């Protein structure tokens, strides 16, 4: 009975949506409104104005830099909320307990062999975000996945050494901190918060600022993901 009611409701929801989809501009059309205004402006002027060959990076770090700063604050706040809800803010307080089913030797070996290679790939993705597909968020997620894979095959004691203890808090907040630093640098040099140099002579400084932001986002993202996963797993 309940299931039938839900399905009727879904059909009622779906019909107007499907009808609206038929009225949208055809898929892949270069004349669609989404493509003819700001998107094409970014494509034409992005490289000279924002400095990165990857236009998506231009939009994220330059044109909509404030948006991204808010976003890194959101992910940091989410981690803080996770720690607050589970109340293990000290970190590493949970006693070591054996895994329910120890992973096989093959899994352990493969994860340990793949981890450094995958981390190297993550570093490549982060550092080349301005000229190739990739960037801080993507590389940070790959690095975070390495930490999660290692968490699955290692004992609790070894896992607590994965992230260095003393700078742990700083690493977790790396993305907002680097963002504020680069923003204030722009404020002092160019009188605009998060301002970038616009002349060709200072293109190197501009690229350095972009790469610094990418590294900050990548390190912060990876640490936040690893911390969230470890906090959820260690508290039972």
């Amino acid at each position, binding site marked *: 009975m*309940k*299931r039938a009611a*839900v*399905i009727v*409701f*879904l059909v009622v*929801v*779906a019909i107007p*949506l*499907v009808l609206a*989809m*038929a*009225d*949208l501009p*055809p*898929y*892949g*059309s*270069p004349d*669609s409104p*989404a*493509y003819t205004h*700001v*998107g094409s402006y*970014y*494509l034409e002027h*992005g*490289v000279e104005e924002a400095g990165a*060959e*990857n*236009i*998506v990076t*231009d*939009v*994220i770090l330059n044109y*909509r830099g404030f*948006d*991204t700063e808010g*976003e890194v604050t*959101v*992910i940091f*706040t*989410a*981690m803080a*909320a*996770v720690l607050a*809800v*589970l109340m293990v803010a000290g970190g590493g307080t949970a006693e070591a307990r054996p895994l329910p089913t120890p992973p096989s030797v093959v899994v352990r070996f493969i994860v340990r062999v793949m981890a450094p290679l995958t981390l190297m790939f993550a570093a490549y993705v982060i550092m080349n975000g301005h*000229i*190739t*597909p990739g*960037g801080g*968020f993507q590389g940070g997620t790959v690095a975070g996945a390495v930490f999660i894979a290692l968490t699955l095959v290692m004992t609790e004691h070894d896992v607590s050494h994965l992230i260095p203890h003393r700078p742990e808090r700083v690493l977790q907040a790396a993305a907002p901190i680097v963002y504020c630093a680069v923003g204030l640098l722009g404020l002092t040099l160019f009188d605009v918060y998060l301002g970038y140099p616009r002349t060709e002579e200072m293109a190197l400084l501009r690229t350095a600022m972009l790469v610094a932001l990418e590294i900050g986002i990548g390190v912060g*993202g990876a640490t936040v*993901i690893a911390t*969230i996963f470890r*906090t*959820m797993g260690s*508290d039972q």
Partner: protein
Amino acid sequence: MIEALWHNIDYVACVVLFCIGLYAMIAKDNLIKKFIGLNIMETSVFAFIVALGVVEDGDAPIMGSGATPPFINPLPQSLILTGIVVAVSTTALALTLIIRIHKQCGTIEADELREME
């Protein structure tokens, strides 16, 4: 109209995905299944917005040597990158709250939780 729908079949697929997620959110009692449904809904919206930026025979919007127009619209991709991170944050927080609920009440079935009150 059927022809227009057939040409926009990618958008229709997003609507179907959205409805699957909505079904999981409404009909399932398990809280984790509800949030997986929410994630499916989010994914459908992301896919829809990225599909809006696709251009016929378009290339990735990376200007380098050898890049030839047309390029795919970079704006939806950037916006969705933001959206994905926020979705991850909400999912992490939701799962944490579910862990708390399980510790406090011993169950994560919505109907059993309702009876407990």
